[in-house]
């Protein structure tokens, strides 16, 4: 995918991503670990560590962020990657996450940091580790990217 359709767009995108990268490197929120291992601006891996006192205490997972040319006007694609993904009612076995801010409720004021914080709080508020009820059904036809899934966002009160 190209970086931008207009020079204006690609400048905004690159500048914003570099700022976000600097912010998250210097000022990572609690439980968010970013080590700038890849040299790609358009694809980042960010680790999150479950908060103490929650079901996911000290569990470490990796989120992969992929930015389209339309970022920040369009939500990034965010999935759990790696050996293990958290067992959570909104996290499918393939790492896809059902979270409204990654879909219709996205706003350009959100950022990599705030998305990580939202996902951490989604984990923190979980009272029982279980897979989504439709996990196996979803896995049968899941698209390669969650962006192609139209989610039904129910309340996150799980």
């Amino acid at each position, binding site marked *: 995918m190209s970086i931008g359709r207009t020079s*204006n767009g690609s400048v*905004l995108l690159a500048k914003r991503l570099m700022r976000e990268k600097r912010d998250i490197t210097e000022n990572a929120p609690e439980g968010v670990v970013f080590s700038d291992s890849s040299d790609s601006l358009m694809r980042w891996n960010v680790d999150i560590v479950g908060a103490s006192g929650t079901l996911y205490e000290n569990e470490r997972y990796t989120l992969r962020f992929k930015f389209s040319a339309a970022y920040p006007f369009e939500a990034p694609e965010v999935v759990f990657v790696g050996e293990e993904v958290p067992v959570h009612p909104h996290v499918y076995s393939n790492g896809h996450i059902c979270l409204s801010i990654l879909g219709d409720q996205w706003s350009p004021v959100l950022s990599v940091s705030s998305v990580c914080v939202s996902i951490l709080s989604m984990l923190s508020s979980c009272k029982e580790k279980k897979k989504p009820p439709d996990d196996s059904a979803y896995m049968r036809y899941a698209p390669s990217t969650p962006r192609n899934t139209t989610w039904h966002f129910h309340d996150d009160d799980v």
Partner: protein
Amino acid sequence: MGNCLKSQGSDDISLLQGGSDGNPAHQQSRSESYSSASPMNESQDHLPFYYPPPEGSHGNQVNEENQIRIAKRIGLIQNLPTGLYDGCKKNQESVSLDSICTCIICMVEFALEDPVRYLPCMHTYHKKCIDDWLMRRLACPSCLEPVDAALLSTFDTS
């Protein structure tokens, strides 16, 4: 309880019902159904123009109705006041300093004389930044205040 996946042909009501988790993104009343599957736009020079949705999204046919909707939207956006940035008004206590001095879309501080657009909620953004967003969704990215409520009645009646 629920299923994360959206049933076909579902509507905004289901989204509205998902709004009890304290996420500010959820507290918004949706003024329209301009979903992520709709055509997206990007600005070139000043005027946003139409281009087909990216591959992978369920593409709507470019049809006359869409073009009319886009033309109306452009007209509506252009009715919003603009100006040249005239300095950081640090005495406005109600809004945090950061959000007055920085365009939260591109995360760059306003420079004097930058063309900016003022939304009815008094949030300010670079003109080129906010116009791109408003083509996707007519709400302030920061406070999610719909920007069309007042304007639509005068603009959309013909």
